[in-house]
């Protein structure tokens, strides 16, 4: 299986690895996956309350190269987006950007799920109703 240069670059030089203070009111944290499944993704967003824009995004991922690259890419895309825009990021866009092979599509789904979980965590903390999402199809 050969991977795209973009994917390898995200794996070798991942963007935004790290941890935000999950106790802060304006930080949303999404933790998805399970150790037994071979991937766990934690994605965090920090939101500017005044503008509703995501000012920072961090991730930590346990998983294969595609999972690491998908989460790294997701954090890049999240910065500067509004919370509402964030949830429109589609896993297939990640698949396309990284040229993920079919067996790795689940990694992009996981990244999409992590974004949604982080946004919902932020909404919950700030008294907003959680968004309902359709169950992801590919797992």
């Amino acid at each position, binding site marked *: 299986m050969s*991977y795209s240069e973009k994917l*390898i670059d995200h*794996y070798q030089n*991942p963007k935004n*690895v790290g*941890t935000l203070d999950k106790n802060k009111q304006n930080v949303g944290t999404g*933790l*998805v*996956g*399970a*150790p*037994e*499944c*071979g*991937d*766990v*993704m*934690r994605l965090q967003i920090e939101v500017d309350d005044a503008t509703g824009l995501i000012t920072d995004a961090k*991730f*930590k*991922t*346990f*998983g*294969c*190269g595609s*999972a*690491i690259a998908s989460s790294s890419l997701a954090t890049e895309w999240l910065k500067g987006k509004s919370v509402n825009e964030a949830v429109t990021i589609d896993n297939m866009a990640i698949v396309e950007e990284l040229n993920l092979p079919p*067996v790795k599509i*689940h990694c992009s789904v*996981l990244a999409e*799920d992590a974004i949604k979980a982080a946004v919902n965590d932020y909404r919950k903390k700030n008294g907003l109703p959680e968004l309902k999402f359709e169950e992801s199809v590919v*797992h």
Partner: protein
Amino acid sequence: MLNFPIYLDHNATTPCDPRVVDAMVPYFTSAFGNAASRNHPFGWQAEEAVDIARQQVASLIGADPKEIIFTSGATEADNLAIKGVFEMYATKGNHIITCNIEHKAVLDTCKHIEKEGGEVTYLKVMDNGLIDLAELEAAIRPTTILIAIMYANNEIGTVMPMKEISAIARKKGIPVFSDATQAVGKIPVDVNKDGIDLMAFTAHKMYGPKGVGALYVRRKNPRVKVTAQIDGGGHERGMRSGTLNVPGIVGFGKACEICLNEMEEETARVSKLRDKLQNALLQIEESYLNGDKEYKLPHVTNISFKYVEGEGLMMGFNKNIAVSSGSACTSASLEPSYVLKALGLGDDLAHSSLRFGLGRFTTEDQIDYTIEQVTQTVNKLRDMSPLWEMYKEGIDMNSIEWAHH
């Protein structure tokens, strides 16, 4: 000066020794005859070459040349042994005992036998990867017609107590079959000393060519018979029809000869490198050796690096170092290694494993580089692993409700 990529996956396959290739070459062109052509010099030449190779192969395992059946590889030999015994001894019984970390060539053949009305006991291995002899003895029934236990495991390199296994089988008069693919050529294997009645092995794991292997079938004390699975011209004393792969067989013979002559020296050298690699990698925090420490092939080690995922780990250096992982991501099934799970490893540790298989041409420089690269990559990936962070913070990962997907 290191040449990349470095090959540390010798359990998957080995390169042909140049001496093996040199021996084979004439049998593709000038000496191309069919070993079954009895009436002209081309056939005689091929037959003679096969006879010599058969002797070389037999010598490596302490057998008589007449007891060697050439096949296309170990998978075919596994099939011939198990299905062949099942059919040949149908009037005696229908029960086979094997274990749950056998190669798929054995396990899936046993599944086939079950569909044909056979009964199979899959012994569970202990957490060191060895079978419990008391359990083996207890599993024997009056209808047991075969005990099929691998000599050495392909993923973790553990070596089964074959002498003890065959002693139990002998008491009850049950033939022992062993898939010795990983052991022959690497450690001393002697069918008489080990009490083995049928044994599968292959050339490409011992610096010979792919596409040729053998089944050893004992001819006396006791005489064992198998029903042919491939019908045709009655080659190999009727047990395996098909024109002999003369160049392959010649290469197989040469490979066996080299292993016999050089095994002692090679084992000493390679096991020293393996120990260096293993000791260094076990220095890494939260790394675990899989399989027994002592009963083990000299050139293999399998280690889990907790909180990093195997495929992600390999990606850190797989341009330069070839190893394999028990991680699900490396297999089509998305299930982690059944061998590691059989040792009682959780899926998380199974996902985190790497297998290193050293070989004849592995150098100390390569091992030093591998130690450095693996250590660096484990550390780098742990820095971006949420599980490592939780572990360091003392969070109990079992207390988290994971979203299984």
